[in-house]
């Protein structure tokens, strides 16, 4: 059942309206319309486009919410079947029908700290419980106390008079005798089931066998709970990755725009972990094309959402008539307002004007793309700080004349920092050589060939990062 409004349809319609308003504003002569009216029209265009972007984000968020709800329903059902505390209580209470006791406790080894912790207690008075919890708050080392001895030696023990036993650490004033058996899972000792009696000689050797049976019941209950905890965690992680992956994919170009005489190509190879690489070609007007590449810090859903904000904000601002340096300043402020400073984006944004063959660009802390001309390498590194960390950052822009035969190469650090088994980095030099080698191929074929070589270089070495390359050739 899906009663969600058609966000996609509305967003599309809004975007059309926005562009229409913008075109109208463009086509009207200044003497036919007052500055106020023109301003208003541009404002309408801007707000409508902003609405379209927000709706796009909402649609994705709604999709995620629906998925999460389904998952939550399954999760709740599972946990109601497997409430560990209830299960343990049932086991320990039924034990009383076989072996009578004053108090019972399940103590388990915390594998991270290698200390013993009290996991389940029954029959302890409030003050005893506090005393015990204080004692076990930071855990008790293996080997200490009767419980610790049982765990260390993996042997059951019957103590007819606790006050005569040197191992005994008092945790409950009324206790006079004690019995304890190890809890074993597979071949590993995971803890101890311990009973206390208010009478001297409350337990005998005969009680050991039924107690051990109950200890194995406890072990099964714990294992089952652990298994389900792990499978839920695993499922959750898989869900998260698949959402992040879909967000990321939906933002990458599926088809290169036609922009003669420029030849465009671009590819992204994501890692399993889902990084935050982004590249884009943004048609702005008939004659102007935006070229963007970016790398979001971090991985997973967080990175995907940051990338979504970056893309929405860049696409929105790129349609305004602002200078590129101002566009990046605005995107930077937007990211600073909506994300903590450690979440940043490095990005390059430029506009190619095909009437005059000029690239105007600004580089916000991204690996400098380069322009190759007759064997000469020109790094495109004018700009400013990475985006999203410092709200007062300012950006410079540069203009570059373009000539037939020029090749522009944009990439993320997944390319230059790819490592082989000898821990060597791929580096800029290798990338430049490959661009020279394949310079006569079409842009898309160049991208394919080069990324294949990077992947070949990485061979079986563990891939750390997304790999993204895009190329623009001037024909």
């Amino acid at each position: 059942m899906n009663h969600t409004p058609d966000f996609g349809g509305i967003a599309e319609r809004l975007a059309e309206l926005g562009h229409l308003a913008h075109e109208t504003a463009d086509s009207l002569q200044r003497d036919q319309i007052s500055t106020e009216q023109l301003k208003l029209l541009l404002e309408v265009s801007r707000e409508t486009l902003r609405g379209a972007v927000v709706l796009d984000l909402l649609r994705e968020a709604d999709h995620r919410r629906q998925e999460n709800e389904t998952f939550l329903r399954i999760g709740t059902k599972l946990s109601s079947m497997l409430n560990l505390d209830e299960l343990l209580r049932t086991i320990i209470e039924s034990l009383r029908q076989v072996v009578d006791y004053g108090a019972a406790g399940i103590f388990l080894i915390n594998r991270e700290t290698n200390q013993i912790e009290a996991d389940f207690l029954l029959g302890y008075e409030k003050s005893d419980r506090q005393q015990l919890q204080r004692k076990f708050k930071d855990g008790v080392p293996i080997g200490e106390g009767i419980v610790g001895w049982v765990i260390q030696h993996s042997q059951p023990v019957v103590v007819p008079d606790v006050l005569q036993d040197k191992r005994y650490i008092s945790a409950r004033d009324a206790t006079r005798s004690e019995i304890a058996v190890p809890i074993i899972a597979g071949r590993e000792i995971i803890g101890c089931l311990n009973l206390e009696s208010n009478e001297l000689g409350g337990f005998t050797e005969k009680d050991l066998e039924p107690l051990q049976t109950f200890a194995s019941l406890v072990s099964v209950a714990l294992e089952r709970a652990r298994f389900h905890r792990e499978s839920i965690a695993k499922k959750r992680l898989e869900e998260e990755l698949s959402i992040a992956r879909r967000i990321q994919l939906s933002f990458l170009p599926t088809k290169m725009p036609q922009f003669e005489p420029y030849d465009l190509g671009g590819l992204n190879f994501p890692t399993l972990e889902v990084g935050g690489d982004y590249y884009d070609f943004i048609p702005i007007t008939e004659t102007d094309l935006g070229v963007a590449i970016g790398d979001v810090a971090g991985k997973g859903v967080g990175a995907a959402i940051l990338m979504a904000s970056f893309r929405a904000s860049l696409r929105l601002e790129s349609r305004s008539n602002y200078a590129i340096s101002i566009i990046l300043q605005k995107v930077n402020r937007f990211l600073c307002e909506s994300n903590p400073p450690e979440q940043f984006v490095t990005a390059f944004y430029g506009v190619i004007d095909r009437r005059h063959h000029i690239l105007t660009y600004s580089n916000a802390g991204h690996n400098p793309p380069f322009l190759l001309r007759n064997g000469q390498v020109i790094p495109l590194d004018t700009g400013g700080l990475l985006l999203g960390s410092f709200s007062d950052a300012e950006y410079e822009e540069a203009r570059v004349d373009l000539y037939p035969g020029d090749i522009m190469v944009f990439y993320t650090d997944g390319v230059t920092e790819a490592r082989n088994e000898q821990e060597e980095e791929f580096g800029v030099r290798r990338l430049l050589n490959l661009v020279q080698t394949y310079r006569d191929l079409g842009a898309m074929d160049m991208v394919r060939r080069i990324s294949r070589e990077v992947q070949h270089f990485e061979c079986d070495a563990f891939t750390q990062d997304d790999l993204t390359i895009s190329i623009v050739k001037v024909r």
Partner: protein
Amino acid sequence: MRLTTEKRGDILLIALKGKIMGGPESAQFHEQLKQAIARGERKVVLDLGGVEWMNSSGLGLLISGFTTLRNAGGEMKLARSTDKIQSLLVITKLNTVFEAHDTVEAAVKSF
């Protein structure tokens, strides 16, 4: 990532070692800074001489440390950043906001 701290007069010296990859590991770093700020300390030198490798999340850790201190009216300076980190700082243009020194002594003296 391993972290050690040392006091040099009114300056807190934090040394990071190993692989700096941000994420959950950075909690320890932020805890140190938070405690230092609570004690009234405002001058921090971050010694990066023992860092083997740093990714973008690791860079995020430096940025958030820097801004945390700046927001508290203090300052964090870098010392002994490796060639690799130095080149990361140049590419991201963080070299325009971070003050970096070749030695710990130089960083300490600069306050």
